[in-house]
């Protein structure tokens, strides 16, 4: 399991520019924190005949509630960090939305959640590799293999083969 090839894994999500779904009768916009410009301009682009709702800095329970009355003909737009995008997507799928009803804006930060495959702890706010696991303390090699269920990237002890051979620190994006 060499990092060079795990990087570039096809499980890493690709975020393409998001447009309004012109067919939808209802648009719901959710921002994890402050509303980013891209989401704002989508919101502004909604015509007056369509119902619209927007939440910023929403808690998970608010989100679940907003999904309760979501119509079959609605589209959900999400902005925030990558783990947030996939966590809300998973709630939305459970609520009955189809995958084509959920549109994700590119994550607002390059911080990653890391899944330590040794102790299964998720470490947050990771921007470089190797990175210390918040569970077992192992120095983790960050990969591009991504789990939508965990909202996190795969990682394993960087110097497991030779403890003296710690890879150089690098930024991940």
């Amino acid at each position, binding site marked *: *399991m060499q990092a060079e*090839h795990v990087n570039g894994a*096809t*499980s890493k999500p690709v975020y393409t520019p998001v447009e309004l779904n012109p067919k939808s009768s209802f648009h719901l916009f959710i921002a994890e924190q402050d509303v980013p410009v891209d989401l704002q301009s989508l919101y502004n682009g909604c015509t007056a005949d369509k119902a619209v709702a927007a939440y910023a800095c929403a808690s998970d329970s608010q989100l679940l509630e907003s999904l309760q009355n979501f119509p079959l003909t609605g589209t959900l737009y999400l902005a925030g960090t990558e783990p947030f995008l996939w966590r809300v997507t998973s709630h939305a799928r459970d609520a009955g939305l189809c995958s084509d009803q959920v549109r994700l804006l590119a994550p607002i930060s390059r911080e990653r959640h890391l899944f330590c*495959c040794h102790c299964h702890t998720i470490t947050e706010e990771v921007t470089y590799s190797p990175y210390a696991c918040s569970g077992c303390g192992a120095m983790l090699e960050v990969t591009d*293999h991504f*789990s*939508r269920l965990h909202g996190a990237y795969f990682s*394993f002890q960087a110097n497991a083969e030779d403890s003296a051979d710690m890879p150089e620190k690098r930024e991940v994006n």
Partner: protein
Amino acid sequence: MRVAPKEIQSFRDDFTYTNSASAIERFPFPFPEDEYRYSVNIEAHQPKGGEGSAFEHYIDVDEHYLSEMAERELVLKDMPNRCLVMPHMDLACWEMLERYMVSLAEDYPEHFKLTRDGDNWHWENKLLNIDDHFTFGDGATLPRPPLDYIGRQVQGDFALMDQREGNLFMDAGMVTCPADWSLAFDAGMSFDEWHGPVPMVKSEGIIERARKYLMALPVGQPVRRLNWTLTVNARMDTSTEKYNEWGHERTTITPENVSEKVYLRVEVQVLDRMPRSNAVTISIRTYLLSLEDLVTNKAWAVRMHRALKTLPEALIDYKGLTRFHGMAVDYLSQFDPAN
């Protein structure tokens, strides 16, 4: 002649695992050609190789049965979440249990016996001294959930895929001897996602073709494919979970010990469709053979040398062979007359 299960040997610590002469003879050698490249190497899982071959039966029970079952107990005791089942996979797990019990009892009547009266089943596994009466489909009547129960009685790892939305999702499995991957991480992924780290396959459309093929797999027509890697020491549990414990063994190879410490690890993967749930199951059965034992078959030694020598760099890296690939090739070259 069929290989009878022998006494328990270990796949860790003192590594007492050995292959008998007949186990060597029936080893599922994976290279059909001198060059190895990824391909959609799927074929019908039909008997091949006659009596005693690793492909004689739907499930192959061999001399390592007791050792592998003992090893599995150790792994599951340490990490119970090596067996994971999402609730919607319950029916698929029962179907896999049915498939396995029926075929084991048919193919190995001396070891396994299944008596069915409607949903009242009686299962006897004489190798592990198991004798249970239960109601098919009723989890409360089995000592463990169905996958956990049958998985501890069959060699190999298992994964169960739910088919929906034009894809297969790995929503259940028991994985205690994987070649460097993690079920806990890959759980819930689609076929394309869990194959994400595999190099070179995307451009060639291999994964997409394989997925389409599997999605159309009918009931009762299982298929198989082989995969392989090299493992240092006869270690079954080369999960990424334990990479921090076994990774360093890759640095212990020297020209002197390469033949005895490096094992060809072959996975016979059998894919099958479950009738009621429409799930696809895969059993990933691992066979280990030291290079030392492998070269007792001259044709294999030559093949193995050529396949390793021409292995693309990306595959050497991905399979984790970088630190000792050269030594393995050098060792094998002495058996290749082309050298």
